[in-house]
């Protein structure tokens, strides 16, 4: 396997996003800003689902950040690059096609890790969050691995959305889904109607997995969330496959 091609592609994908403020700035600042507002200023040490609001929301806003990095990275990135004909050009290079996707996954996970680190810093310094290192590690690993389903879902969006509409489309899907999954305010505090749909939304399951690592959450077994997320991964890949075929058919007839 040509690891150099993979490494280079990943490196430049990351550099590209860092230098493209339209992605890097909202991906990082939104979760941190929201967490400061809801988790630290309003919530702080008040109790929530077996822990404090600041601790609970640290997990859910970290999930929010990781999911956003994945959805925007793939959904918007792929849509724009398809629009620019970048994919067609890349196919003419000796780069292995899979390196393109690999690079985007690594990029999304790297941004996710940065967001988690920032949130942990803010929570510990300002929100009175005190989590043992083992739990922080478990939380981080869970969330970073949890980026995968959202990379797949983002990919599906990227294959169907147009380059100009993709940001709006991802926002329209992501924001209501984040709210109804309990990423912004604890799922236990959502109105019952909203609460009843949260299990059907993928972010809910990542949030519950994350909360599970710090001893909170609604208490369904972790493997059920993993299976559901695997299902959403498969769903995203399947639709992405259809989108890819559609593009091929258009290009080559």
């Amino acid at each position, binding site marked *: 396997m040509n690891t150099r091609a993979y490494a280079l592609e990943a490196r430049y994908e990351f550099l590209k996003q860092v230098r493209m403020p339209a992605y890097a700035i909202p991906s990082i600042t939104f979760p941190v800003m929201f967490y400061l507002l809801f988790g630290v200023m309003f919530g702080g040490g008040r109790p929530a689902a077996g822990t404090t609001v600041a601790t609970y929301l640290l997990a859910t806003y970290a999930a929010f950040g990781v999911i956003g990095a994945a959805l925007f990275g793939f959904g918007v990135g792929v849509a724009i690059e398809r629009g620019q004909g970048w994919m067609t050009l890349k196919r003419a290079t000796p780069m292995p096609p899979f390196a393109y996707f690999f690079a985007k996954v690594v990029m999304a996970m790297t941004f996710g890790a940065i967001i988690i680190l920032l949130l942990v810093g803010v929570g510990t310094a300002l929100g009175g969050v005190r989590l043992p290192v083992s739990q922080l590690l478990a939380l981080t690993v869970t969330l970073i691995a949890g980026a995968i389903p959202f990379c797949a879902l983002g990919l599906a969006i990227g294959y169907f959305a147009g380059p100009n509409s993709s940001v709006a489309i991802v926002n329209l899907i992501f924001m209501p889904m984040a709210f109804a999954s309990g990423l912004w305010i604890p799922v236990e505090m959502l109105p*019952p109607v909203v*609460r009843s749909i949260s*299990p*059907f939304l993928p972010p809910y*399951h990542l949030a519950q997995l994350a909360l599970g690592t710090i001893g909170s959450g*609604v*208490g*369904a*077994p972790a*493997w*059920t*969330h*993993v*299976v*559901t*997320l*695997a*299902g*959403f*991964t*498969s*769903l*995203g*890949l*399947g*639709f*992405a*496959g*259809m989108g890819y*075929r559609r593009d091929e058919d258009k290009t080559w007839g």
Partner: protein
Amino acid sequence: MHTKSLMIVTLGLALIAAGLVAGRPPAPTAGETLQPPPSGTFAIRDVRVFDGERVLGKATVIVRDGRIAAVGADVKIPADVPVVSGEGRTLLPGLIDSHVHTFGNALQRALASGVTTVLDMFTDQGQAARWRAEQRAGGGTPGRADLLSAGTLVTAPKGHGTQFGLPIPTITSPTEAEAFVDARIAEGSDYIKIVYEEGDAYGLSLPSISGATLGAAIAAAKARKKLAVVHVGSRRAADAAVAAGASGLVHIFGDEAPSNDFAQRVKAARMFVIPTLSVIESVTGVAGGADIANASPLAEFLTPDERAALNASFPKRAGTKVTLQYATAAVRQLHAVGIPILAGSDAPNTGTIHGATLHRELELLTRAGLSPIAALGAATSAPADAFGLTDRGRIAVGRRADLVLVGGDPTADVTATRNIVEIWKGGARLDRKPAPTEAALAEATASGRISDFDGPDITAEFGGGWQISTDTMFGGASEATMQLVRPGAAGSTGALEITGAITPGAPFPWAGAMFFPASPPMSPANLSKFTEIVFHARGDGREYQVMVFSTALGNTPATQPFTAGAEWKQFVMPLKGFGVDGAGLRGILFSAGADQGSFRFAIDQVRLR
């Protein structure tokens, strides 16, 4: 076309569905594990085991430190473990009575007939909170059953539930439901009981909450992860409760035959039903418990008052439409489609008593089509599952050793549950004593001796025992606890110490210990030959009071003060001073008075003269 993509999408949907089904949030439950078990290590060998659902032919059960450590046919008994023979006997999980009202010594009386847990459906929430706190601290075992309680119920002003003399908050509109339910949960209610009862089935006209309030209260309870159980008396009310999404019904109706699709609707709503056929039988004017009182192995363990209660029934009302046949038909239909049926007695309503009536209920359930095994499940695993009690209700490794050993085979003839050989609660054996005979009780009563507090438990020579009573039932926040202390007055072994604190809040603050001269508590006793209350007291120098409840006084007690000083002192209080005589005496309360702050006093050698 995109066959591969489609297959991946389908796989994804299947995985999502599997994850969602397996990860369904647990149903709302009463939730809390009640009590750390005490120690208790023994084995029962060669016993037929009903494990809560199934029968194991001949097995050995090992109990270690109050929990079940092993169950099975080839379990080896370690050498150091005491062995009980189970030959010809059946071991049952401790029975659970899913509908009681708990006052006075109800929990002791329930356990005496093998009921190790009761699900209370309305009592004084302050008393329920005290019992819960004691349970959590590990108290009350093996002497009494564990309690879960709805506390105060949800009912309309002047509606069913307000007639018992406890002044309870009521609800008038759906908009109050959330705050009302929150207040119950704050008081400690383990689940929410809602009364939807217009009395029509019984030829009465009672104010009831509206259908909208019913729906709002159910929704509020469920949103807070609490079970919402509903009292209904009529088919119409039951239909409404099912439609409103109740978690369970705490009575079955008997005013009409069930509609053909009733059970299907209950099933679709995933509800359970606590039929309480025993109390329905009593309402129809039949004293169905008479058999137990007069000719069962339980009889000798029942007090004369309890036997009298079982030989009685409600007077049959002229306008009542309720029949046991309709109620039985509804239970039969429910059971046929697999609705969880839970055995409940509704004790201490007229015609029913704590503990023993549950054995009658099992018999009535078998007449409604439940097999003996299903009926036993209705008093063990079914309530444990419905109320989320994962530590009891089954004989399985790790569960509490709440056990009843009976002679014979109740899985073939359910009335064999009455042949109780042993009762263990949390692995601790109950020292089960025959109740005093009529003559002995008459003699005890005639002697006038109430309590000298020299034994290991807080007991009385006659009547319904001692209970803490405080102004929490009138919205106050005063507290009291009682315990035996040594030494007692006049060189005796023990005395009853009452400690607590008076907190302003109720119109007439009080907190103390109350003796009930008759059972069930607050029923009148005829003690007309006595003219004085005599007792010893000492304490912190505060002023205390004796409050006498009597039919002659209505609901308002009469009071006389005394001062408990550092040394024991005898007090003699003529009943005349309270404006009563001994006829119709319902309660004698030794209480701290209106002064705020903590208090401590002890009483001893309490008697009538």
